[in-house]
């Protein structure tokens, strides 16, 4: 499913956070939003996930303005994994994943056999079948993040939005989560839009990168075009040497020092 953003303006009170953002994300691509702290990247993903209301501009799913679609209908196509999420201490993994079926449930209806199969499928895809009866709070950070991704999968979305899915995770879990995201994108064709802090990870796992700086869209393109001395110097204020990762076919860099 295609995601199009047109002329997006977002304010917190009087403060303008995003300024006239427009881009078009093709179906089946992984796009990573990057930018320094406070640049507005999380705001952008929160606005696309309709948690924040833009003052101006529109968001389109397959050319239909999301304002014209019922919010439950949107949730059947667009799943969101925010940074801030909460789960009661006695909720099991399977229970959490079953909440992903909420947008598909009719008023007062219980989970059907089909819903249960989809929950099972989501658990299997994320490798959580064995742990489905455990309480979510007892899982490791990486497993917990996988459980939330499984909940999003149970929505059967065509687009998945992830707001810093690797934050607070150890490096091994970070890779586990990103590998899973990549695999879901490859095997199921889910369009992914995420925010990442680690630029090298972003470059490695993305088809496209979108740079937000100071509320403006600075650049949007493939990792090899985006990761440049210019970007690192002007946006992230570091001098770095850029190399090519021939195995993963993507650029990577090693920071040298802070730009004077």
């Amino acid at each position, binding site marked *: 499913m295609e995601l199009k953003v047109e002329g997006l303006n977002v304010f*917190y*009170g009087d403060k303008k956070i995003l300024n006239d953002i427009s881009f078009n994300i093709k179906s089946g691509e992984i796009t990573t939003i990057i930018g320094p702290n406070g640049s507005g990247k999380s705001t952008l993903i*929160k606005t696309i*996930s*309709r*948690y924040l209301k833009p003052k101006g501009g529109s968001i389109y799913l397959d050319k239909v303005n999301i304002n014209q679609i*019922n*919010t*439950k*209908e*949107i*949730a*059947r196509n*667009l*799943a*969101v*994994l*925010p*940074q*801030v*999420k*909460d*789960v*009661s*201490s*006695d*909720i*099991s993994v*399977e*229970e959490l994943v079953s*909440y*992903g079926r*909420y*947008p598909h*449930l009719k*008023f*007062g209806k219980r989970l059907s056999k089909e819903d249960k199969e989809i929950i099972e499928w989501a658990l299997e895809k994320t490798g959580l079948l064995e742990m*489905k*009866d455990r309480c979510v709070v007892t899982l490791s950070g990486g497993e917990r993040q996988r459980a939330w991704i499984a909940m*999003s999968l149970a*929505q059967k979305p065509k687009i998945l*939005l992830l707001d810093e899915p690797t934050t607070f995770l150890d490096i091994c879990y970070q890779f586990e989560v990103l590998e899973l995201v990549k695999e879901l994108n490859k095997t199921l064709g889910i369009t992914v839009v995420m925010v990442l802090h680690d630029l090298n990870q972003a470059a490695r796992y993305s088809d496209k990168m979108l740079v937000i700086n100071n509320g403006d869209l600075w650049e949007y393109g493939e990792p090899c075009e985006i990761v440049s001395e210019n970007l690192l110097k002007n946006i992230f204020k570091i001098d770095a040497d850029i190399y090519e990762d021939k195995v993963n076919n993507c650029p990577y860099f090693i920071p040298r020092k802070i730009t004077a």
Partner: protein
Amino acid sequence: MNQQNEKIKKSAILIACMCFSITGFFISIVNGAVKISFVEIVNAIFFEEATVNYQIIMNVRLPRTITASLVGTSLALSGSILQGIMRNPLASPNIIGVSSGAGLMTLIILILFPDYYFLAPLSAFIGALTATLFIYFLAWKQGVATTRLILAGVAVSSLLGAGNNAIMTFYPDKVSGVIGFMVGGLSATNWKHVDMIFPYAIVGIILLLLISNKLNILMLGDEVATGLGLNVEKTKFLFIIISSVLAGAAVSVVGLLGFVGLIVPHITRQLIGSDYRFLIPATIFTGSAVVILCDTLARVMFAPVEIPVGIIMSALGAPFFLYLLRRKKE
């Protein structure tokens, strides 16, 4: 498989809660200032309509027990919802000002316009709703944050409490008549009171049972709930309205009965877990059982003198509240 066992276990707890409530109901009917044995009660209800026992059972104990049950259910549900949507274990109709709003309006009617006593329930709703909407308005800043909502509730609550005290200061001669109301009591309850609370309690209960899964979704956090296609602001508002209607109905009948809305939801959550599809029905039973039993205690403890049930509730509730505070720190 395990999920299935969990469901069976929870259903069993639910049935136990129901039995607890039914047992409480019978204990309340059997016990009172006048000793009436179980056999006499059966006789009174089914065979001898004109006796004193019949009068006591049918026109005193039965309406009082039913009222206690509905009051308990309403306050407990109200507290359970508030604790859920505010994601704060200390939220309850008393603390966030819903009760004091209803209380002030009822007090105004009882003291200033005693001839219009029949308007008490209506004014209690208006009070509860106004207080709720006011608190909501105060807490609103691009959506409602939980902390702001609770703080605004505490502030409004003390303001309304000051209003209560002012009225009592200006009309000292009428204070003795409303003491029962201030602490929460069920003395002199009759069928009229049942009629007052019944329709609102039933509507609230049915609505809650129908949309309890929305509370589960809300518990995941505002952003997750939005992502799952739940209109968070609208849903929260709907639940706040239901909760103030339930609390308002209860307050208009029983007065400012504290702690039910705090303790009962807690104990019930400990028993059956936080899944609202089980928590709501369980709270219906535990809420009713707790108030029925406390009221029975209030009637028989110093019989023939009876004390307001609010005193019993506070005596049990205050230590429990402190226990919760202590435990949260750990």
